[in-house]
């Protein structure tokens, strides 16, 4: 048996497993229902797929454990200790609401309630001078109170600690001694960055997640080891890299979007495989769609994200926009007679009307079924669809009120869904001044390939790529990443007078820490790639731009010129003669993991025979349409639309006028 690489993507409904054979590049997939303890399903799936853990050289994992713990608020009893006078930073936030107009829609409350937020006298100035030191007696009294209340985790969050963390660390030392076994996060260690709300919020998320994901990672590592796996479990984090259970304690908050990042990574990988440096990832599932963007070979990153509104997690993270549109989104008519689609979803229970589980409202899945775009079953026959129920739902709720026939109503439902999703993609891409004609649309998720061609036409994107296993593409993403840490140092300096030697020494400090972390994770020096950048801004402005920084850093002038060029490009202007400030030093530290290549198949020029034909309704009307099994199609196969490609985990629609071919990695490339 040759060496295997395994990736497991545990979602709410299904656990997807990707198994890659290192020698041949063969890829196998498995899909099992998720279990109460998510680890059970992962191991069961491996047993079903006849994988011996002793053969596994790399086990990577994207998990929703942290995300779900935050959403469901199943969090350990956690305290926050903060500067006297600043007890409510995480409750005040930036004072805005997600829904500006609905006064009956509240923001989610903070992860730590006011009763669990304690204060202590201490103060550091903006310049980093300790004005009031932590009093040891007061700290010990506080520790006694914390112990009595039985907290499992504590977040220490002090004002201006980004400039000098001495007070936070002093309290941490006292609490660690007094509260053995309690997980303690300090804001400056988690995210040494100016702006108290961003830093405190990130530290609080880290504190509440630390016991949750720490225990989870440990348990999973132990069960894998018991099965014979000898290496570190690799956990996917929001920045698009992986980390090992040994770093989880310090960076638990980075796992908050572990499960979502995988799709974006797969998007990048598949786009590159097909020769596209620019790709829009379109991952459409049952209740929502994740859109990600790759520009010039890199996933776009953001520091502005959250699991719940008002509680930012400010680590650099792959920028993913989630839209409330999926196969299960419900079509409805509003009181003024407008045809609407979503954001309410039938979910998996009761599900679309055609599932026959009690759902009566029409969804996108029902409309696709009525139009013949979906066949009579899903999940390789595991789920029979009831077309009569779908027709009834559409007839009752859409067709009759609008005075249309059922097929027209179904077409209308899909068109509205596609237009909504195209608008959302437009906001994340074209908005940035990027031309869609330079992109490919990579479509995956259970429903992505059904809608992708129409979306691409609307967006003027010329090419759609559907990977070989659209339903488990996210899991594939887990296999393709390197160990990555993002370190930063807030460093507020007037660029005109900044001492390059000091900046170099700060970078050197970050690099030493990065190497130590990567060594700790077993990465050799030869596999370490360090990339520096500096965030700069005009003095008095809040918005900063990152520019590359040289190794060694010897000349501030070059950085200023790079900043001005970037400002002109990004914001259309340069402020002649205005002061420029150095704001933050960033270091991305990557530990390269050896990549295994997917198997390349020799293309054969063939126009395959369809398995069947049926009537499918397109924009042009009902057409006799060829139905293919995706697994029948070898590399090199060519297909002309209209056609429907069915497979275990997804269905692809090739509309009339479009053509498709299968590439050597078995991706379907559709020219729309």
């Amino acid at each position: 048996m040759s060496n295997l690489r395994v990736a497991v993507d545990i979602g709410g409904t299904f656990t997807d497993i990707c198994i890659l054979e290192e020698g041949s590049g063969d890829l196998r997939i498995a899909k099992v229902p998720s279990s109460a303890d998510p680890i059970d399903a992962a191991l069961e799936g491996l047993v079903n797929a006849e994988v011996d853990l002793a053969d596994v050289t790399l086990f990577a994992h994207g998990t929703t454990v942290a995300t779900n713990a935050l959403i469901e608020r199943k969090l350990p009893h956690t305290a926050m200790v903060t500067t006297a006078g600043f007890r409510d930073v995480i409750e005040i936030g930036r004072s805005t609401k997600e829904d500006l107009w609905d006064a009956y829609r509240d923001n989610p409350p903070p992860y730590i309630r006011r009763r669990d937020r304690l204060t202590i006298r201490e103060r550091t100035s903006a310049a980093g001078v300790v004005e009031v030191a932590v009093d040891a007696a007061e700290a010990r009294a506080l520790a006694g109170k914390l112990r009595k209340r039985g907290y499992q985790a504590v977040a220490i969050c002090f004002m201006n600690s980004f400039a000098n963390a001495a007070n936070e660390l002093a309290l941490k030392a006292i609490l660690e001694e007094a509260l053995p076994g309690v997980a303690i996060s300090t804001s400056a260690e988690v995210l040494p960055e100016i702006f108290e709300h961003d830093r405190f919020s990130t530290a609080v998320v880290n504190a509440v997640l630390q016991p949750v994901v720490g225990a989870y990672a440990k348990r999973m590592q132990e069960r894998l080891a018991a099965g014979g796996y000898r290496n570190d479990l690799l956990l996917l984090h929001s920045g698009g890299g992986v980390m090992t259970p040994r770093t989880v304690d310090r960076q638990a908050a980075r796992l908050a979007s572990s499960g979502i990042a995988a799709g974006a990574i797969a998007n990048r990988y598949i786009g590159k495989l097909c020769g596209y440096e620019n790709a829009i990832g379109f991952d459409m599932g049952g209740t929502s769609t994740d859109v990600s963007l790759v520009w010039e070979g890199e996933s776009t990153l953001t520091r502005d994200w959250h699991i719940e509104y008002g509680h930012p997690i400010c680590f650099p993270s792959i920028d993913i926009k989630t839209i409330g549109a999926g196969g299960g989104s419900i079509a409805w008519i509003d009181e003024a007679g407008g045809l609407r689609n979503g954001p309410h979803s039938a979910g998996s229970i009761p599900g679309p009307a055609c599932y026959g589980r009690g759902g009566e409202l029409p969804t996108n899945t029902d409309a696709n079924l009525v139009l013949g775009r979906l066949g009579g079953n899903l999940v390789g026959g595991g789920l029979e669809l009831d077309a009569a129920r779908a027709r009834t739902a559409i007839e009752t709720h859409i067709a009759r009120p609008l005075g249309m026939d059922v097929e027209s109503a179904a077409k209308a439902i899909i068109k509205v869904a596609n237009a909504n999703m195209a608008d959302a993609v437009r906001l994340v891409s074209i908005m940035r001044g990027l031309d869609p004609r330079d992109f490919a649309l990579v479509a995956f998720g259970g429903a992505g390939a059904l809608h992708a061609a129409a979306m691409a036409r609307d967006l003027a994107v010329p090419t759609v790529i559907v990977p070989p296993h659209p339903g488990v593409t996210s899991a594939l993403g887990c296999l393709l990443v390197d160990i990555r840490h993002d370190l930063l140092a807030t460093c507020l300096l007037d660029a005109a007078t900044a001492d390059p030697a000091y900046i170099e020494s700060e970078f050197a400090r970050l690099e030493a820490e990065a190497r130590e972390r990567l060594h700790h994770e077993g990465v050799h020096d030869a596999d370490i790639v360090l990339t520096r950048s500096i965030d700069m801004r005009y003095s008095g402005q809040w918005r900063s731009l990152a520019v590359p920084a040289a190794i060694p850093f010897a000349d501030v002038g070059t950085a200023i010129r790079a900043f001005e060029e970037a400002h002109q490009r990004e914001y259309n202007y340069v402020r002649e003669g205005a002061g420029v400030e150095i704001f933050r030093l960033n270091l991305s530290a990557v530990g390269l993991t050896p990549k295994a290549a997917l198997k390349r198949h020799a293309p054969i020029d063939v126009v395959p025979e369809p398995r069947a034909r049926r009537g499918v309704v397109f924009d042009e009307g009902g057409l006799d349409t060829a139905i293919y099994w995706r697994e029948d199609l070898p590399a090199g196969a060519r297909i002309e639309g209209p056609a429907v490609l069915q497979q275990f985990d997804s269905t692809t629609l090739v509309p009339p006028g479009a053509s498709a071919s299968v590439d050597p990695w078995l991706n379907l490339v559709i020219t729309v």
Partner: protein
Amino acid sequence: MDKPITAASALDPVTFEVLRNAFVNIVDQMAEQVRRTCYSFVVYNRDFSNALCDAAGNTVAQGNQDLAAHVGTLHYTCKAVIEEFGDDIHEGDVFLVNDPYIGGTHFSDTRVLLPIFCDGELIAWSQANGHWADMGGSVPGSFDVTARDMFKEGIRIPPVRIWRRGEYCGDVARLIAKNTRDPEAIIGDMDAQTQATRIAARELLRLCDKYGKDTITTAFAEVQDYVERAVRLRLAELPDGSWETVDFVDQDPAGEEGLIPVRVRLTIRGDSAEFDLTGSHGTIGSMYNCAFGGTFAAIVSGMKTFFPDVPLNAGLYRAVSVIAPENSIVDARWPVAVSGFVMCFEKIMNAIFELFSRVMPERAMACAFNIEYLQTGGYDARGDGRPYFMLYDWLAGGWGGRNGRDGLGVTASCFGVGLMIQPVEGQERLCPVRTDKLEIVTDSAGPGEFRGGVGLDKAGTILDVDNCVFSYFCDRERAIVWGIEGGLPARPHGLWLERPGEAARFLGAVFSDVPVTSGARFWRGTSGGGGYGDPLQRDPRRVLEDVVDDYVSLERARRDYGVVLEVVDADLAEYAVDEAATRAERAAIAAHRHAWLEEDAEAVAARYRAGELDMYDVIRRHGVICDWGSGELLANSTREFRAQMRARCVPHWQ
């Protein structure tokens, strides 16, 4: 659904829905562009709005993130440009306007308008409005509370052209920019806004290309019809009738002591709503007057709060009529000062909250805290160079208690919920002011069966400065945030200043140019929201939970709610309700509270001055308004405030 549906006529439902969303999407793209490329931090913190208007200037779509105070004014501005220039509008033109007397809000809100042509025909306008950081006038930031006319406030820009057939009119732009304190930032924001209007044009022309020009212009009309239909259906479901109320601005600095009424009568007749502001006070001797644009914005925003899912466009305006008496505080004419229009704006909005609370009790809401804005300016003497600094600071506060739910705590004001507060660490770095406290205030929420949301206190110390002054723009130091359905008021706004070696002084909620020196300490707070329902009906367990979180103190649990708690373990924040004592306390309050409200006001003020009564008792039990520093009774204000408590509280007390 058994409601009658009158679907859009000329367009098929798909095209209609796609275009309806596409128009909003265009405005969202404009907003992204403005935020990305703007110059000033005021705009960056979201003090801007955008719109797409049809050829006649009617608003087709506004952004969902727009500030309330701009809503419902952008079509007036567009129509004003059309009226001014008539046939003289050409492809490649760009217009600028900030005139509050023709439907704008105040001089700071400056709008850039681009006419959009398709095949030589004017089919639409895109409009980007931004709050410019300075418009000239007598003070930096252009808010002079002593201004009685516009000549102290800033430069008035009637509709002018800043681009003519694709050529930039640099002379006009410079004339405007050089009348402000920061010409570079003004030009920068103007460019950012212009760019946003061009993005809208590009996107709209893409749609024209795909669907045809006629389909687009038809859709403009139909999305307005659609919103009008939706609003009228909602209104038709509500009972017919007429409801009225009054809210107040604190004072007319040029007149005698007494609250300044803003009256609103709502009449729902069939499927339309009329707002009649007759009886509102004449214009006052400060900048707290409102021209008609701001008044209309308040009415539309108040409505939108109760129909939050109805999209914003001119269709909504058609279902609404407004009567505002000429030359009143809600319809100020040139050249009356209006830069503080938001004070009237918020009073109208809160009055509408109260009126709709009666019509739609399921969405009822008491009064919210008042917007406040502290401006500190001077020379930073911390290091060499002594640069001039300006610290503009605003806070969040509490919104009113709701039917079945406590109010929203520490939220931006109803002026615009999208306006973000700033990080303290950023302020401390840029300005020589240290913040000593920014925290939720125990007992700041108006008591009620469902209490208001909580407010904040912010305290600071002036570090090394030269020639430093404070100006403060706020209100509701006297017309204190009120409750409904028996709920109680919250607490007064106002700022305290303690100069080195002097006793603390209460400066109130509105003043300008007060000198401050290094070492001075100051603090001010925001009110919580007003209470909803009789506080004696609040579930004692909820009061207990509030005490555990220090939202309510043990003392006020007893005095406001009649709930007596015993401390089980202070370390664990464990309390228990003393059921018997609570019953007795509640009975005693119920027996006395009518009389408290009638007690001699001067005697109450005297007890406050003597330290026998605390401020919360003076306000919540006795309805008495004082100068909160000196304790001097404000007799006229008290009379009006008590009349309101008798109307809003007493009938609901069992």
